[in-house]
């Protein structure tokens, strides 16, 4: 049978109903209590109404009146009234008049005057006890409940250690109908007492008088005593229970302390017995668990006794059938003490509960079907483990069970195993050991025995068949460097009992492991250590990670050092290759300003370059160039071009010749045809004496001339970019500059924007330049223009040449 109970995937409706049932159940319990109380009061009212021929309200008032007069609770008063009703015909009194208070007490059942009394000095102390008793009696079911109640309530003040209730059977023998505190064995012994003489209970019943057994020695001669009074219950009281006609039951109060019963105690015990007349008397037969069930010869009390002896959980289920005979529910009529349900109710708390009422989600499950089948066919049911979900006060709980059920008469004996707890604990422990790579060990120093957990073998890389290692053997595996510190720690542990928390390394066959040893020593009375227990933790993984981290840290620092060195080198390189003046400089009567912004800030140089040098004849040479590409590769080419150009012009070569030479240079420096580089360039020579500027260009963008308030691009002489073709010719142009003129040479990084036509960028440059000059920012023109470019898309180089005003 598949054990998938309603708990797994029970529909929402079922769960909702389950919640409703749980709530109603608790309400029922409350109402049952109220109902029980009300029933007693109503019956007492009924009695008074009949006796005194009064109305219900009057009867209620009478009860309240009497109770307050006597200082009793309402319930007590009712019980007493009902008990007295069993004691005999009501005394003759005027039907219309409510019985006077004194008459009430006067009609007490015949008790010997031996007991001093009813209204005592200690009387006030009895009240609360009797009130408690009365309350408890409303819900007492059966002799055992009454006995237990008596024992609990009277235990402290009256010293009652055990209670036994005997009833007289028609055959004249005694039957133990209730007991508490005697233990099973004794109760069994005295379950049936044949009509012998010398039984105190018997005498009390027969004589209708209370018997006070206060002298163990003397009593032993007269009576056949229950248990040895020397050791248990040196004093006992047997009080007959008042009932209609002669007494048929007696309550034995067995005390653990010796000595006579005080008057107060006697009164208390008598009154307690009187109160119990109600529940124990004939009209108040305790609800017998077997009475409502099937007449199948199964003695529920016997079954309960069997279950009481069991170690595990087991219950007796009685089927509750509809009129048609169908099983509607099961009632738990007996339960082994270790039976615990999902909500934690155990043993006796389960008795009386109905299965579907208490565990509604069981209906329709394989379990339920299994019960029904076991009941009808008589074959035992063994279910698969299943998860059960119960809702208690709105809180769902789940547990895993395996259940067995077999038929007994017309009932079921059900036993189960709950899988979780022990298993879960064991699993948790194993997981913890494994995950934390922890192993524990015990070393008994006295006997020399050692025990290890499984994980220890894993940690030490040891075959479990070799058994555990002693502390001494362990020390041999330590790395020599770690031995002194570890040995010292263990020494402290063994001599001073100081706890150890020591990291160390061991060599296991093929590897070195980092372990941590945490241990304590247990000492004997003299403080000498007798046992060491502790755990080893394998920290190799963590340690490994730590070391790796340190390594990488070192590597990073090293790299950072290298980068810093590179940077320093790059800066020096740039200074050497292409010194960029911080401020504007003066050259051949002109004011020169440079802006240089390479893309690759790290290297500080790029394929862009400029030259502004004075030639031997006092003229000035201006160059702006742009080698294709970025980075160090372009720098090398740039350096070549720059120095070659400088060299040639200093020696007086005409400008177009210089370009031709540079073109050839580029074409020939490539390692293979596909690796050649190109460059653009604009080069000018300025003669300060006539302000004539002669210039050439190779594929470069047109210079910008600002004259007055206009900015125009110069018309360019012919000349394709360098390194493109072997066939190259270059033209030359001339312009005469005027004071106040400004000339800008620049590279394409200043104007080029992807997605934008080049001319747009050029126009923007012209406009920005005019604007900036109008705003009086001419001194930082080059830098400002360069800074206005967004991002670093390309290297930028700007050369700003100003012809100063004469004035």
């Amino acid at each position: 049978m598949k054990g998938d109970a309603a708990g797994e995937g029970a529909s929402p409706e079922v769960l909702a109903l389950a919640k409703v049932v749980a709530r109603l159940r608790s309400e029922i319990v409350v109402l049952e209590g109220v109902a029980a109380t009300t029933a007693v009061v109503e019956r007492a009212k009924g009695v008074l109404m009949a006796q005194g021929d009064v109305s219900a309200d009057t009867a209620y008032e009478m009860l309240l009146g009497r109770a307050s007069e006597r200082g009793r609770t309402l319930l007590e008063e009712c019980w007493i009234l009902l008990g007295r009703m069993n004691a005999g015909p009501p005394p003759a009194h005027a039907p219309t008049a409510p019985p006077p208070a004194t008459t009430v007490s006067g009609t007490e059942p015949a008790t010997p005057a031996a007991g001093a009394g009813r209204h005592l000095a200690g009387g006030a102390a009895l009240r609360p006890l009797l009130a408690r008793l009365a309350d408890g009696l409303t819900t007492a079911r059966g002799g055992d409940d009454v006995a237990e109640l008596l024992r609990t309530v009277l235990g402290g003040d009256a010293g009652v250690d055990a209670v036994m209730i005997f009833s007289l059977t028609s055959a004249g023998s005694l039957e133990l109908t209730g007991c508490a505190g005697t233990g099973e064995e004794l109760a069994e012994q005295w379950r049936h007492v044949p009509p012998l003489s010398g039984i105190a209970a018997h005498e009390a019943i027969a004589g209708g008088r209370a018997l006070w057994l206060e002298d163990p020695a003397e009593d032993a001669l007269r009576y056949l005593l229950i248990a040895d009074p020397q050791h248990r219950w040196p004093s006992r009281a047997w009080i007959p229970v008042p009932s209609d006609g002669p007494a048929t039951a007696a309550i034995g109060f067995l005390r653990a302390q010796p000595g006579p019963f005080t008057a107060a105690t006697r009164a208390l015990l008598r009154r307690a017995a009187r109160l119990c007349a109600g529940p124990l008397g004939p009209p108040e037969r305790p609800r017998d668990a077997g009475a409502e069930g099937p007449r199948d010869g199964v003695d529920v009390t016997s079954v309960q006794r069997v279950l009481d002896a069991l170690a595990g959980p087991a219950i007796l289920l009685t089927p509750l059938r509809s009129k048609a005979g169908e099983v509607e529910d099961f009632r738990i009529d007996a339960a082994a003490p270790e039976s615990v349900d999902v909500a934690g109710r155990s043993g006796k708390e389960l008795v009386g509960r109905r299965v579907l009422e208490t565990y509604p989600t069981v209906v329709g499950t394989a379990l339920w079907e299994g019960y029904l089948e076991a009941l009808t066919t008589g074959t035992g049911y063994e279910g698969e483990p299943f998860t059960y979900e119960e809702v208690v006060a709105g809180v769902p709980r789940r547990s895993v069970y395996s259940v067995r059920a077999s038929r007994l008469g017309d009932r079921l004996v059900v036993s189960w195993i709950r899988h979780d707890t022990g298993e879960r604990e064991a699993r948790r422990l194993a997981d913890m050991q494994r995950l934390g790579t922890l192993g524990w060990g015990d070393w008994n120093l006295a006997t020399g025995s050692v025990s290890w957990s499984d994980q220890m073998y894993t940690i030490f890389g040891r075959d479990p068949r070799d058994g555990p290692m002693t502390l001494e053997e362990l020390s041999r595996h330590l790395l020599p460097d770690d031995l002194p510190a570890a040995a010292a720690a263990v020494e402290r542990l063994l001599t001073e009992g100081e706890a150890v928390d020591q990291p160390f390394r061991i060599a296991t066959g093929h590897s070195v492991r980092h372990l941590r040893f945490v241990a304590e020593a247990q000492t004997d009375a003299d403080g000498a250590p007798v046992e060491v227990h502790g755990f080893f933790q394998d920290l190799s993984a963590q340690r490994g990670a730590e070391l790796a981290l340190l390594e990488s840290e070192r590597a990073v620092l090293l790299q950072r050092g290298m980068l810093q060195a590179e940077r320093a080198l790059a800066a020096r390189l740039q200074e050497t290759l292409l010194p960029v003046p911080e401020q504007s400089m003066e050259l051949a009567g002109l004011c020169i300003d440079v802006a240089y912004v390479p893309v690759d800030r790290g290297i500080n140089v790029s394929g862009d370059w400029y030259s502004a040098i004075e030639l031997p004849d006092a003229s000035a040479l201006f160059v702006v160039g742009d080698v294709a590409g970025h980075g160090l590769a372009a720098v090398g080419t740039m350096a070549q071009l720059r120095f070659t150009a400088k060299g040639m012009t200093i020696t007086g070569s005409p400008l177009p010749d210089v370009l031709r030479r540079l073109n050839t240079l580029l074409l020939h420096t490539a390692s293979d045809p596909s690796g050649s580089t190109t460059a653009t360039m604009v080069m000018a020579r300025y003669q300060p004496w006539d302000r004539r500027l002669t210039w050439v260009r190779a594929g470069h963008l047109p210079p910008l001339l600002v004259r007055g308030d206009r900015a125009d691009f110069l018309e360019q002489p012919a000349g394709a970019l360098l390194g493109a073709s072997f066939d190259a010719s270059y033209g030359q142009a001339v312009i005469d500059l005027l004071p106040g003129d400004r000339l800008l040479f620049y590279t394409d990084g200043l104007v080029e924007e992807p997605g934008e036509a080049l001319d747009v960028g050029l126009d923007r440059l012209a406009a920005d330049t005019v604007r900036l000059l109008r705003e009086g920012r001419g001194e930082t023109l080059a830098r400002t223009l360069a800074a206005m470019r967004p991002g670093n898309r390309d290297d930028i180089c700007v050369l700003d040449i100003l012809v100063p005003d004469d004035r």
Partner: protein
Amino acid sequence: MHTTGGERFTVEATSLPEATVLVTKGELDHDTAEPLRQALDSVWRDGGRLLVDLSRLDFCDSTGLNLLLSGRLAVREAGGSLELIGLHPPVSRMFQITGADRLFPVHTDLDAALAHPRST
């Protein structure tokens, strides 16, 4: 063969009996140029007619130009030719300023290029 320079630049090569066509698309600059370099590298030795379609190029900087120029030289040395298709703004302006437009045979489209006999 189809290589990409990320999303910004792609080169698609097609082999025709009369020529190999490289269709460029997107922005050709220093960062995206690698596919073109590889494409040129794999064909220049063949020495045949190499047609580079620039009609779908949005941008070309000096790196791109340099590649084409050096490709041109290499192809010529191997006995072939490198010609351009669809050179128009914005790319054309740069070719014009640098004077590179004079260095390549330029055709309006593929058909025109194929119709025209091979030039050097």
